[in-house]
């Protein structure tokens, strides 16, 4: 499924390419068209797949930890933190290239805000799922207010709000091949850290008291799982901005495909997430040429109804 999605996405675009064009480009053809495909389209498609992988896997972890079908990767403040970080990068003159500061600050914001949420819930003595969710809502409100203030105070004709807005709506950056390779390494690391959480997620799904009886140190596990998943989210946000809905839908679709045991669910959610983002990114590039629709709008606009359709069919059967 993922392979098909990647192939389709690689063909789709402002100008459609045939699979044969791709084959020529990959075999070292030096025409302009082949070079364009290699330099611009393929890295973008692969980056989209990586972002989706991270969102799908972390979404499955969040739903497992919080045992809530509405849980999604941006739940614990990472969206607000990433948005604040990117706003700073786009509006405050830092004297560094935005290509560097934007992903970096988005990453720091996303992970940092989850750290704040964990710290707040610990100080408040509520290191359980409900306490963390509430702390997440509170921290998100504060971060949102800060960002709105920054946008009002710092924007002028020179630095436009549109740049901030379009980043928040999500869109996979086209990386260089080196950057892509680095990001692939980071993503592989995130997935390698995520997979050992599978058994703990299964146990915590039995309820906290049963999980404790079965030897899981519940509070420690929740904190560990949240930190690991947030690392994935922060990496995804740094490259792809805020992509609505994928982290919510991918684990559900994966659960229908392979069942609820996390040993199989985590990789399946990662693959489904990768397919979804790759396809959505293709739509974003190809639907209204030469303009490009923000990716987050595509995932929400197309993904929402599609997910409702799947849900209805599943419920009826």
């Amino acid at each position, binding site marked *: 499924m993922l392979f098909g999605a990647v192939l389709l996405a690689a063909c789709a675009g402002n100008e459609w390419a045939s699979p044969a064009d791709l084959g020529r480009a990959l075999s070292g053809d030096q025409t302009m068209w082949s070079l364009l495909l290699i330099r611009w389209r393929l890295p973008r498609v692969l980056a989209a797949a990586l972002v989706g992988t991270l969102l799908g896997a972390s979404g499955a972890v969040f739903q497992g930890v919080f045992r809530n079908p509405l849980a999604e990767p941006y739940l614990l403040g990472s969206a607000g933190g990433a948005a604040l970080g990117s706003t700073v990068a786009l509006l405050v003159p830092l004297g560094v290239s935005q290509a560097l500061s934007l992903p970096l600050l988005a990453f720091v914001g996303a992970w940092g805000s989850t750290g704040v949420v964990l710290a707040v819930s610990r100080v408040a003595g509520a290191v359980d799922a409900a306490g963390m969710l509430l702390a997440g809502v509170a921290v998100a409100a504060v971060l949102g207010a800060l960002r709105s203030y920054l946008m009002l105070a710092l924007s002028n004709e020179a630095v436009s709000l549109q740049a901030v807005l379009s980043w928040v709506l999500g869109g996979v950056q086209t990386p260089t091949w080196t950057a892509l390779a680095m990001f692939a390494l980071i993503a592989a690391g995130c997935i390698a850290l995520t997979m050992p959480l599978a058994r703990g997620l299964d146990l915590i*799904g039995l*309820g906290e008291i049963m999980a404790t*009886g079965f*030897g899981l140190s519940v509070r420690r596990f929740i904190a560990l799982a949240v930190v690991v998943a947030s690392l994935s989210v922060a990496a995804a946000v740094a490259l792809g901005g805020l992509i609505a809905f994928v982290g919510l839908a991918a684990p559900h679709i994966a659960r229908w495909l392979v*069942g609820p045991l996390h040993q199989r669910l985590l990789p399946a959610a990662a693959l489904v997430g990768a397919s979804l983002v790759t396809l959505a990114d293709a739509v974003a590039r190809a639907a209204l040429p030469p303009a490009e629709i923000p990716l987050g709008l595509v995932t929400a606009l197309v993904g929402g109804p599609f997910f409702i359709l799947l849900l209805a069919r599943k419920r009826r059967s």
Partner: protein
Amino acid sequence: MTLLQAEHLTVNRGGQEILSDVCVSFEATGSTAIIGPNGAGKSTLLKSLAGVLTPTAGRVLFGGKDIAGLSGAARARAIGYLPQQFQPYWDLSVADLVRLGAERGQKKSGGDIDSIVAGFELTNMSKRRWSTLSGGEGSRVLLAMVLASDPSVLLADEPGASLDVRHRIALVQGLLRRSSKSASIVVMHDLDLAFRFFDRILLLNGRRIVADAPPRELIDDRCLDEAFGIQFERLETAHGPLLRAI
């Protein structure tokens, strides 16, 4: 030989004392029913013995070692704790649930789950999902999950409280089947079954153990009436004495 021992257990929750300086020990075999009125501290005592709740003061020894010092994995394999309520969040199959119980505390997976499932006579429902099970089937699966690692102690909190009498008796007999070679400690609301099937009765009242005796000795003791705040009539039946509230 003493296997499990509580030393001066005190548990406070929300400024209230729930258990007060409880000392009790259990042999490696035999069956014990914990009875008492609501709020006496039965579930709290059971959770402390299972190591899923940390006491405010005192300690629990398992095989002479403080249970708080055991790794979660070692504790989980040696002690089977069957909670009062169990509602898995994900709709797992019976085989998967038993697998989680059998593999708890182990790094490696695998093992022959099919034969474990067969040992609990669950083969014909092993592929069914939890949501499709009846109350009686669900309680059998839960018992199989807890016993699948062959723990040396079973601690069960009101098993089968919601079942009809036939299924409840079957369940209690199922969990006592092992009491010739391991210890079974069970919180019981059903006094009839407690006095009929168990070797030893612990009566809790007001955060303490007020009686600890075999059922034959305890049944005539007036402390029962006092603990439950009710008068019991003792009836002799062909199957032994029976308590009836009047």
